[in-house]
């Protein structure tokens, strides 16, 4: 339950913060949610990772779908020398996921530091 709530909150606040702040604000969101909602280290990491993987993966997939993958074809070729919209979407999702995952993990360590308890 905590896992699902965390995931939903990270997705929601990440989306909102990216409207106004730089992209890496997703890390700050994941960090604080992870402090506020107590979970194990691994669970926190997975939670942050999955949240952004889903959010950025879905957003880029949806935009690309509307676009008929025109830009994704060109940009994947430009950046990765491979014509693969799927790869571009995957890497987009992965970047968000890694930053949020490690930020959430860091948050979970902060919480353990503060409370001094763990499970």
């Amino acid at each position: 339950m905590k896992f699902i709530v965390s995931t939903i909150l990270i997705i929601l606040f990440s989306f909102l913060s990216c409207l106004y702040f730089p992209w890496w604000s997703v890390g700050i969101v994941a960090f604080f949610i992870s402090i506020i909602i107590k979970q194990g280290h691994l669970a926190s990491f997975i939670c942050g990772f999955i949240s952004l993987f889903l959010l950025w993966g879905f957003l880029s997939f949806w935009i690309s779908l509307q676009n008929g993958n025109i830009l994704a074809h060109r940009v994947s070729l430009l950046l990765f020398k491979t014509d693969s919209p799927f790869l571009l979407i995957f890497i987009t999702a992965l970047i968000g996921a890694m930053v949020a995952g490690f930020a959430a993990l860091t948050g979970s360590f902060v919480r353990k530091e503060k409370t001094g308890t763990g499970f």
Partner: protein
Amino acid sequence: MKIVSLIVSGIITIILVLLFNTKMVLPVPLGKLLSPQKGLWQNAEPVNENYSARLSFPQLQGKVKVYFDERLVPHVFADNNNDAYFVQGYLHAKFRLWQMEFQTRAAAGRLSEIIGPKALDYDRDKRRLGMVYAAENSLKDIENDPETLAECDNYTAGVNAYIEGLTESTLPVEYKLLGYQPEKWTNLKTALFLKYMALELAGYEDDFEKTNAKSVFSSADFDKIYPVVMDSLDPIVPKGTVFPPPAVKLKVPDSADSLYYDHKDSTTIDEQKPDPDNGSNNWAVNGTKTKSGYPILCNDPHLGLNLPSIWYEMQISTPTYNVYGATFPGAPAVIIGFNDSCAFGFTNAQRDVRDYYEIKFKDKSRSEYWFDSSWVPSTFRIEDIKIKGQPDYLDTVVYTNIGPVMYDKKYNGGRNTNQKDYAVRWKAHDASNELKMFTLLDKANNYNDYLKAIKYLHTPGQNCIFASKNGDIAIWDQGEFPAKWYRQGDFVMPGTDSSYLWQGMIPQNENPHLVNPERGFVSSANQMPADTSYPYYLGGNFIPYRAIEIDKRLATMNDITPEDMMKLQTSNYNIFGKWALPVLIRNMEVDKLSPQEKKYFDILKNWNCRNDNDSKGATLFVVTWDSLETVIWKDEFLKSGLELPWPSESTLLDDINKYPHFKFFDNINTANVETLPDDVTAAFKMAAAVIRQADDNGKMDWAKYKDTRVEHLARLDAFSRLHLPIGGGTNTINAAKEQHGPSWRMVVSLTPETEAYGVYPGGESGNPGSKYYDDFVDEWAAGKYFRLWMMKASEVNDKRVKWTMTFN
């Protein structure tokens, strides 16, 4: 332990952010670029994008409605002219901002700011040529003309209105990739854009190379390798035309024989230059030759093939005028197009208006130079070149009364290593207001209006073609051209003596022209405008063949329809091939060929002289002729150790036909004396080796061998269109070369209800994430056209109108 975990995890997070937000490790900030809400995903425009909008700007005096058709071509209906220019600026910026900015930065020598030190030499070249100085001079002329000034002011305001509304996410994708921001537009930027075109079209010269050649070859040989007139010339103004005596009486300097014609001096070169084939075709026929009984005008300017395209198609309609055609993002007005009474277009005049003078400074300070027997003070212009990631580079350019000293000890542009000082006299430095010509042409009703308009064209000189519904056709080889004596400016000139300066400008009414000729057509394709009976020296870089073919075809065509003109404009017939092929066949020593080479020779022999997509003969012909040029010229040229101008195709063919024992046939590196058959056979063997390789890779078909592409301005292959299936090439009317060719094809039939067709290799949107980015490219390559819709105000409910933008 926990502290350690916290620190490690925190550091990993920070490293990830830095990794994806900077260019410290990765070549681009991948996280910033790919973040879906602000990065380049935001440039992925939905395929069913709705372009309709209601916009409001205090700068507007009235109301403007823009109707976009199914090709995203805007039809602008404005209450007044100023508002129309505002909206034109806004639309150019909305669809083409990055390109406008990039081209004007390139013109101003400011690319190092965005791409770093590798652009420094490019920038210094532009600064030292005086591009900004030239634009500033033009801007003064624009500011002295209230009508043009208002036009520019409103255009600039429109561009800036769009820039002000940009956000991080709506920034064009190239800014995100290269990591910089657009600047505010200014009238100077518009002037710079026009100088960018002037450099492209009137910046070509080979003075240093020719000076080298003069030092190597005897004058008899020189005239055979670099003749002033081609034997096959079919000039714009037919041979035999009688010209009035010249108003400018030229005096060849007394010292010309010793200091100029016979002076042997040389330099070495490796320089950036405009494409010498920045050519074009245009022609107009009158009603006696058309099926409808009304004139038809055609134009296809040949320029570098780029995405986003140099052209943006639009219609502008106000209470005083109504015009449709190709516009330049970066400048107001329609450049090539038609209105309700007439049509107009251009080809490049190819005249040499950029000359070099050797300057003699008193001392190292360069503050005084020797001119007409006295020391004259020079002025200095300090060019501050900003470089991305590095301190500024300061370049001091000395200005003389001739022009800026482009090459000196501190900068040789890869050109003169003999450490001398050379000032450049370029016609584009002079103040002029070319925009006025386009504005007046857009509004022209008849021949007299056209004549008034083209008087504003000084540089780049153009063959301005005209046809009107009342039946007139005309062509003027127009511009303000220096009146030159024989071969003046072909070589570097002494800069110490005013007798070598340009002595005057050819009066406009003495420019070659042809109005309503009896033959029923006028045309130009970058050939010489007149033969040697013209009273001034016509130095320049002329190309004879396309013109010969066009004139030959037009002379025999009757009952012409627009479809016939499209076929002519996209014709792949190679008239040079027709004339040169017999030379190859006649001189081939077939018994010396291998079986494989014989097989290729059979294909060449049976070539139909058409550069069609799948023609193997065209590939064989082009490669063989190139090899023949190498075999004949290269031995002598290499021996000179200097950079020399490569003789043109027409020169070699003319020499072969005229001189059976031409001394250059001999290979100076062998003991034998080679003859033409030896050379042709050797060339064919060289060519066959190249073709064999292409053949093995399945690339022997002409289109595959030539491999035409439309290249993104920043040379990003992923944003370019590569390997296009299009024939033609050099010396065919369909002049589609590797990355150069017909940049806008237009056919206008001036019937009471105008019937016009056009196409360009691009699309209306400059955004690589839009389906309108390159949607005309395939039609262009296939030689197809779009019907151009001169929309009427009453047609707002027409089903071709897809979106409406309202400005008030």
